[in-house]
């Protein structure tokens, strides 16, 4: 074998790596090593620095809903390619298909109903891992369906948002989902329904500028990035660095746009109390 074809031996690779083995998890912010089982049981919150990592939709539901009571609905609604959108590398419907395989989800939101400490709630949970939680026709439709169910069955509506904004691959139809979901919330409000909006990291763009900001009560997880424009867009527009903490949960609370910042561990209890106070 020619010397340049010989496999290179990387000493590091040969070593036992506890993070790669999956036994230990390294916190992305404070770098402390956490026993993986503890990390999962703590719903991906660092016990050391309180960093709240992203949860996928079903982890979130598991963290909130009484075991065995969640009933998912409308998971048979899937995206099409209404604009025949092709970014030159991949057609949009294939991009969606890839996201489905990667996440084992049908779309960027899971809707359904279940019990929260015995109270009946209507739930919509967004999942950032599915195309950045972007809102296209399916996300808009499912959120609207969930709101309409909440009206019909007089359930408290809870939406967990996590999104980069509208899904540009569906063009104007994505934009229209902002109006559609907001109009449904107006109906819920007129019917006397209770809507709690929970913002998680990150929630920006068209999702923030529609249903996410329309909660009777708006909750945020600690340090979540929440905004209309993304920080990069703002920096490019004004050509200056953004102040630290800008668009984070505490910033929004200081400016009057978030009612309560709730740690993941206390989320279920807080939601329960809010529903109790208002019923």
């Amino acid at each position, binding site marked *: 074998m020619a010397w340049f074809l010989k496999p290179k031996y990387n000493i590091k690779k040969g070593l036992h790596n506890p993070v790669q083995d999956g036994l230990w998890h390294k916190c992305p912010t404070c770098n402390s090593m956490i026993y993986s089982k503890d990390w999962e049981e703590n719903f991906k919150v660092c016990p050391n620095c309180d960093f709240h990592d992203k949860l996928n939709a079903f982890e979130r539901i598991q963290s909130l809903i009484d075991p065995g009571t969640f009933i998912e609905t409308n998971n*048979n*609604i*899937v*995206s*099409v390619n*209404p*604009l025949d*959108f*092709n*970014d*030159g590398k991949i057609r949009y419907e294939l991009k969606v298909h890839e996201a489905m395989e990667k996440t084992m989800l049908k779309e960027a939101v899971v809707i359904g109903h279940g019990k929260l400490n015995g109270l009946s709630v209507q739930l919509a949970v967004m999942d950032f891992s599915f195309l950045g939680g972007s809102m*296209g*026709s*399916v996300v*808009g*439709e499912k959120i*609207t369906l969930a709101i309409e169910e909440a009206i019909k069955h007089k359930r408290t509506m809870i939406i967990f948002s996590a999104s980069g904004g*509208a899904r*540009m691959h*569906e*063009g*104007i*139809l*994505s*934009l*229209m*989902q*902002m*109006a*559609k979901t*907001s*109009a*449904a*919330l*107006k*109906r819920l*409000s*007129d019917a006397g329904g209770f809507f709690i909006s929970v913002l998680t990291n990150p929630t920006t*763009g*068209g999702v*923030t*500028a*529609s249903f*996410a*900001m*329309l909660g009777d009560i708006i909750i945020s997880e600690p340090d979540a990035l929440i*905004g*209309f*424009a993304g920080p990069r*867009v*703002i920096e490019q*527009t*004004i050509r200056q660095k*953004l*102040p630290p903490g*800008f*668009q984070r949960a505490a910033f929004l609370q200081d*400016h*009057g*746009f978030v009612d309560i910042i709730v740690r993941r561990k206390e989320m279920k209890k807080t939601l329960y109390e809010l529903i109790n106070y208002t019923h």
Partner: protein
Amino acid sequence: MTAYYLSFEKPIEEIEKSIAELRESHSGNREVDFSIEIDELEKKREYLIKTIYENLTPWQVTQVARHPERPIFSDYQKQLFDDFLEIHGDRLFRDDPAIVTGFARIGNEKFVIVGEDKGKDTKEKIRRNFGMPNPEGYRKAMRAMRLAEKFKKPILSLIDTAGAYPGIEGEERGQAEAIARSLFEMSGLKTPIISLVIGEGGSGGALAIAVADRVLMLQNSIYSVISPESCASILWRDAGLAERAAEALKMTGPNLLKLKVIEEIIPEPMGGAHRDTAATMKNVRTSVLRHLAELKRISTPKLIQKRYERFRRLGAFEIVK
């Protein structure tokens, strides 16, 4: 003749220059008669404008929609409205000049007006933030629209913005909340609402004043979830590929009509609204008054129900087994 030509209007520019030159020598020299040549050039000019404007690409339409001489809100204020009384301020923070609100008459109809104004000259453009509203602009619009509901007057909103302004202060004052609240409230306003995109319909900043019973678009206007430049820079990390993005985003009238996002395309005079503002206004006036007459025949509860259904059905998806 216009003072500003878009790149694809080069042949029109050349011919209009020749016509102007001939005219000049014609008037200075009475011995030679150029009128036949001028007539011929005029015919050629008309033919050129027609062929160019009948075959505009989406990117060219975008350029016409942003043309520096295109009629903007202040032109409508002067030429579409028979009179206008502006009202100012959101009663919370300040008056946002990027959105103009007030009362107007068009024919026998009284309207409450909400319009995005990009500003004409540099000073005005800066004062009006190039038509990019801050939260107080949307809150002012909401205030005006609530007055419309209270006094049972129809609302006409004129849309022309690159988008809601993405700045630090806008975020501090809740740009997202202001837009969301507008979508929420407009969907239930108990009065007819007509929206017209007169130039650029830029994303949430446009939709925030366009939750209407009828959404109309001028022929050479655009309405999109994202600007072609931003779309290109996200997809291909190159804003220079905007032409391709404009194509992909399907942001012009005929596509939006097909998707049922708009009800009607209002024709512009040949060669674009900037070549004949008066004719543009005439077309807008006829269309707006016709739509209002139709909406006035619908009872208020039915109007709200139909508005809900109008947006409820927008979207494309598939239900699988």
